């Protein structure tokens, strides 16, 4: 397949890529000068490194290369509690015709954490995330991203935000490398920076083989990965990822989780949705369960799940909610 020689400047090893990616992440802490709010957070992150409930040395951001190898991927006993509130959503409302898709949702996501949104199909996860990312205009409500109103001051907010939408296509007649470069330029990077970061991201997400092929010829998982890379190219403060693990193979998922963990360790914030309770339970610090456009439970993963697994708790919540709705007439007596 890859018979043509690859230009030397585009050949990177994975280790190269990860090292370069760390420098990309480091750029988070050197916040844009014109943005005092960002600078505050950056300082707070530098002064007090992410607090962990039961600190595990492997997760300290100082030695990410080693920690990656030694990290036990399947269990994580501690959750980061995070710093300031990075994303504050209040009274978010959206209806399509008579259907209320998102019914006055409030969310609060702390910086330096991974926040998971779970819910059954059609619960309003994508609608919520679309409104947070500025893709879908809310009927009411407010979204504050580190002090910036996403809908009132969208250009400032979107510079701080990287998004991976679900079910929206990419400009897939571009090659993977062109797509990343395109995203970089549109985010206002200069050509040189865009080129360098594209090369880093290509190596990090393991796209080296495919970077010169059209995105339309990619597998679903590879398309997700390149979209994720495009979301990160401008070193945003917040990543909003809608179903980032859907149709991604295990190895790639681990790679993505690793990237997200480093990103969060450096002070970034992630909000993601997923169907996989195991994944959410494993990687998220806090979680919100959305059913029928309402939040049924939210808080630290450990608090939400109690002594059950998150999956059991989730099924309980969804079923209680449905049962309650079915029997609603019984509670409104006729006389």
């Amino acid at each position: 397949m890859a018979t043509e020689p690859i230009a030397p400047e585009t050949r990177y090893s994975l280790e190269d890529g990860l090292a370069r990616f760390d420098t990309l992440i480091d750029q988070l802490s050197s916040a844009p000068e014109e943005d005092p709010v960002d600078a505050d957070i950056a300082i707070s992150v530098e002064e007090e490194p992410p607090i962990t409930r039961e600190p595990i040395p492997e997760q300290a951001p100082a030695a990410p290369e080693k920690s990656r190898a030694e990290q036990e991927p399947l269990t994580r006993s501690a959750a980061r509690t995070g710093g300031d509130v990075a994303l504050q959503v209040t009274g978010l409302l959206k209806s399509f015709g008579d259907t209320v898709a998102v019914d006055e949702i409030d969310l609060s996501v702390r910086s330096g954490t991974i926040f998971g949104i779970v819910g059954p199909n059609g619960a309003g996860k994508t609608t919520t995330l679309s409104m947070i990312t500025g893709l879908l205009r809310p009927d009411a409500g407010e979204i504050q991203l580190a002090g910036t109103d996403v809908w009132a001051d969208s250009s400032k907010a979107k510079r701080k935000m990287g998004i991976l939408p679900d079910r929206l296509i990419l400009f897939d007649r571009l090659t993977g490398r062109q797509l990343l470069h395109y995203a970089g330029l549109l985010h206002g990077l200069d050509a040189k920076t865009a080129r360098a970061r594209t090369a880093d991201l290509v190596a990090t997400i393991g796209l080296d083989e495919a970077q010169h092929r059209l995105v339309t010829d990619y597998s679903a998982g590879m398309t997700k990965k390149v979209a994720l890379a495009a979301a990160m190219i401008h070193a945003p403060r917040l990543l909003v990822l809608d179903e980032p693990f859907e149709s991604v193979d295990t190895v790639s998922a681990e790679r993505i989780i690793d990237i997200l963990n480093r990103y969060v360790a450096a002070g970034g914030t992630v909000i993601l949705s997923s169907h996989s309770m195991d994944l959410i339970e494993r990687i998220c610090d806090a979680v919100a369960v959305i059913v029928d456009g309402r939040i049924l439970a939210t808080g630290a993963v450990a608090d939400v799940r109690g002594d059950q697994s998150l999956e059991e708790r989730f099924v309980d919540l969804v079923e209680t909610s449905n049962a309650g709705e079915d029997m609603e007439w019984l509670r409104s007596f006729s006389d």
Partner: protein
Amino acid sequence: MVAVFLRLRLTQLANSLRRPPVHLLGLMVLLGYAVAGTVFALGAVDDLRVADEASVGSMITICGSLILFGFLLIPLFFGSDDPADPRACASTGLPAGRVAVGLGVSAVISVPALLLAVLAASQIAAWADHPGAAVVAVFSAVIILATGVLGARTARSIAAFWLHGRRARETVGLIVVGALLLVSPGLIGIASTDWSTRESQERLADVASVLSETPLGAPWAAPALAAGGDASGAWLLLLFGLVVLAVIWAVWRVLVGRMMVTPQRPDSAIRTTGLGWFAIMPGNPVGAVAARSLSYWMRDGRYRLALLVVPIVPILLIVPLLIAGVWWQNLALIPLPVMCLFLGWMIHNDISTDNTAIWLHLATETSGWADRIGRTVPPLFLGIPLIAIGAPLTVRLYGVPDVLPAVFGVSICLLLAGLGISSAVSARHPYPTVRPGDSPFAQPQSTASSPGQALSFFGTILVASPVLALAGLGLAVGEDWNDMALLAGLVVGVGGYVLGVGVGARAFAKRAPELLAFTLRN
């Protein structure tokens, strides 16, 4: 060895009948058409025996050339499922020369070859009354059959070797549609002409004499020449036919040699090392959108189809006018402005063409200006050289140098104002279009009426109408009006571009989420 190949071919032919009944029915229908066509041709040849030699020769040469052309052209579309692919013989260890002979000879066993053989034989019958010509016709028939069969065989392998993969198929498909669109006015002309007049007979003879000197027509024309008394000329044509056959054989032999040592690649995906247009365009949002648009104009079948239509429309306009008797020098003024109008119109639904990928422009908060201006870059890239070359050419064909400013004015105005209006309309009135990846000939998945299409087209004409009027005065009256037309064209064109892009940019900035919602419904 050849016998083995022939047996293999016969087995394949027999096996091709072991299909579901529906396929067989389709096959029978096709075969029926082919046989009916051949019978019709036989009847026509039979009728020719009572006509005079000259017209017989003309008809045979023209029809015969068309048939041989079909034998070379049609196999190009069936390269992918070739049952006699030389590569299949690579593992047998046979030398390429023997494979070439075996496959070449066994290609005679096919239905089209059989029909061609019948036709070639029937033209011998047409010359039965002229003993000298009949002898030539026998040789002709052999050359015709060999050329057709080997030509088809070679064409099919060329298609299998070079024209595989999605992109090649798309390209070939577009070329064919283009060719059909080009040919159709000609066919209308042919159909509407009365061929019994002396004048048209002479024209037929002219066409035939030109064709007789081409590889396709030479073997068919030889007997007619002999019947007319020019025996040496006839043998010369036969010799020419033999040389052509030898060339085809050489191509076939080389092709087999190459194919047998070249591994079959899987459907090769497009690979572009480097950044393509992104390396050329400036590294800012406008340049990025421009580079992305340029890449799409080159790669996306939907844009390529639209581009193909741009030069075809003026032809479709001119041919009827020409037939209706309009002086052709007046018609020379038509193509350039029409092409400019269509180039400007091409981007009037550009956001809909992006489909939901437009989210990236929202996520990056791409400014409306960058989005709008970037999208006008590909048509400007094409339109500016087109005007620079086309305007002097138009004036040269028209024959009056004074009208050059007016031609410039009208073309520039139509292109720029058209781009401006399209930029505004595509952000304000998008309508559903074919989705990315679907065939450019497919119908949109949803249909919702929008004024966008007509608004941008007639809006451009309306805006340009003062310039058109001034140019008309320039043609009718004289020089001052021509300069006025240029001036007005520049003012209206640039003004329309700036205004349209501005309106579009504002609309895009304000309505970006609604535009995304529209593409989601699409």
